[in-house]
């Protein structure tokens, strides 16, 4: 097994196999000999013990729920701890001489990286290692922000690249999805800012032109395709998620605020064009998701297709129809789509 996810899937399959075998035996469909049962039971027992020791897999639904809750607590605890460190530094830094401030700022992320490694060697669950990783990232953000204040350095989007790279390195090292998401968001911001600052434009104005985020989102989606190693540990879906969200949200904004486009043509044409592009792109995303068995990609495509559709309905009918009739019409269309998808699913099954 390469990682915890694979190990957990194996344990889940074993549990499912045991439950199905019991049902088959009760219904007298299948009966294994006592030797076969013992052999399978012992094999599974040893395998589960190994996987639990190596990856701390969950054995029951109750354990899974608890694990989920522990992840939430790790996130909340980590965020609170990061905030505490951040504000503690701002409270104390004026009392420390500048050389001391610099030493603290540079050494803090390194110390937390070492601490993260220390915890990772001692615990399978990596909860404390995750906290240490989050703190290392936060301290690096503080490092560059405060150095910028001390030395009066002009603001630059390059800091986002540095922060993003550190978060991504930690994420790959310790299989941290949260830090990967944060890191990729930083890199997305950097890409959009660099694209937006072409021609001397102030970099922060990239937010005023959503097309910067469409391009940056496209690059984000292409990265794990171009560099296959980036997609290990199931991380490709996070690149897809961030890239697609960036593109679809930008298209949504441009569908309604055509004036914020780089294109200097009639606003109505821009908005109509982006609305059409939204439908085509989300449809394409659904198709790619189904074809390549990428559930996350498919779901994002469906979500935004539906959102664009409902926003069109609102655009066409909200003013024209009484409110009850508007919602009735939308619900009838939704039910119609449901029937259509049900039919499609039945056809797909027949084809199999």
């Amino acid at each position, binding site marked *: 097994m390469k990682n915890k996810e694979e190990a957990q899937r194996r344990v889940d399959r074993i549990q499912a196999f045991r439950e199905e075998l019991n049902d088959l035996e009760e219904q007298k469909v299948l009966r294994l000999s006592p030797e076969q049962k013992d052999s399978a039971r012992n094999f599974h027992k040893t395998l589960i013990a190994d996987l639990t020791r190596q990856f701390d897999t969950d054995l029951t639904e109750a354990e899974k729920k608890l694990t989920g809750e522990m992840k939430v607590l790790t996130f909340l605890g980590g965020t609170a701890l990061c905030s505490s460190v951040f*504000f503690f530094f*701002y*409270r*104390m*830094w*004026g*009392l*420390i*001489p*500048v050389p001391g401030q610099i030493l603290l700022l*540079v050494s803090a*992320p*390194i110390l937390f*990286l*070492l601490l993260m*490694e220390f915890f990772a060697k001692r615990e399978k669950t990596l909860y404390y290692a995750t906290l240490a990783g989050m703190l*290392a990232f936060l301290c*690096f953000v503080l*490092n*560059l922000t405060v*150095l910028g*204040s*001390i*030395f*009066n*350095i*002009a*603001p630059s989007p390059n800091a986002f690249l*540095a922060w993003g*790279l*550190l978060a991504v*390195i*930690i994420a*790959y*090292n*310790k299989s941290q999805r949260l830090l990967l998401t944060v890191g990729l968001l930083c890199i997305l911001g950097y890409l959009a800012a660099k694209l937006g*600052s072409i*021609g*001397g*434009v*102030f*970099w922060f*104005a990239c937010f*005023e*032109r959503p097309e910067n985020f469409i391009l940056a989102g496209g690059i984000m989606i292409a990265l794990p395709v171009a560099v296959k*190693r980036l997609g290990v540990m199931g991380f490709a879906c996070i690149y897809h998620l961030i890239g697609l969200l960036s593109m679809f949200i930008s298209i949504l904004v441009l569908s309604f605020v055509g*004036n*914020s486009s780089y294109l*200097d043509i009639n606003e109505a044409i821009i908005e109509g064009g982006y609305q059409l592009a939204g439908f085509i792109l989300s449809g394409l995303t659904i198709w790619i998701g189904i074809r390549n068995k990428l559930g996350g990609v498919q779901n994002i495509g469906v979500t935004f297709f539906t959102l664009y559709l409902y926003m069109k309905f609102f655009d066409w009918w909200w003013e024209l129809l009484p409110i009850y009739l508007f919602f009735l019409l939308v619900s009838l269309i939704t039910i119609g789509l449901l029937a259509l998808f049900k039919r499609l699913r039945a056809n797909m099954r027949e084809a199999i």
Partner: protein
Amino acid sequence: MKRYGLATAIGLVLIVNIFVFSGVVYNRSGDPDSIIVLTEREARLIPGSKDNTGMFLELDWELAGFYQYDIHRPQQSWLDGNKLEELGFDVSFPLNDTKASKFYRRSLPMEAYIVLEYGGKPWELWLKKNLDYQKTLAEKFALENDNTKKEALEKNLKQRKRLPLAKSRLFAIDAGNEPTQLRRKYPVRDRFIIVRGKIELTYYSGSYKHDKNKRKKPYLEGSIRELFSSKLFVPDSERTLILNLKYRSYLSYYWIPKDYSDAQLKPRYEVELKFGKRYEAWISNIKPLQPEAQS
């Protein structure tokens, strides 16, 4: 990645910090681009809080010209359509066109190098305009019958008389994309400083109702939204003097609290600023000011 992850992460932190410090060393290496001594009027104390013990001064400056309370800025500033075009803004759309407002609203802010002058002609011009404005206010006061309006005029007049004691003498006088060209144009390094900043373009339709400048015809004007070097960190070696100074919460360009005496308006310190090769500033010295040394 897993095997070398820790080394890579630590390496990244160190390399980025080395890169940052290299930039700082480069900025502060050799002769500074300018060395200027300002007073508290131009480099104000920023109020601290118990949650942030860092101490900063902020450059107080304005665009060269004269602002009045009722008519915002009667004359067009130097940051007009021609200068904006020079800075890279697209100003080709006809100003009288009905779609001009929509076109220019799309304009994005640009980075540029901005020249600030300390004292000199902009300050002399401001003093003269301020005196002229006081005469105008005095004439209006003499002719006014409404008591409320009379009171407002009197307040404004008192403000205008006291403002020269406390107002900043730092004015933005020019901007460009090439700092070396600007330095050649303004070679006096202890009077002209060059900083990087952000400039925005605004289109005014000239409609009397909405235009505070009341120029009655369409025009373009730029505004300097931000100077990147305006917030100055006070190093611990210079903190002692200003640590116990009370923050003065006044001084927009036309308002002083009436309970402040003239002595309270005078600057309490002067600060030596150096601007380096990257036009990023640092405080090299802060000295107290003696009361009789005020100007």
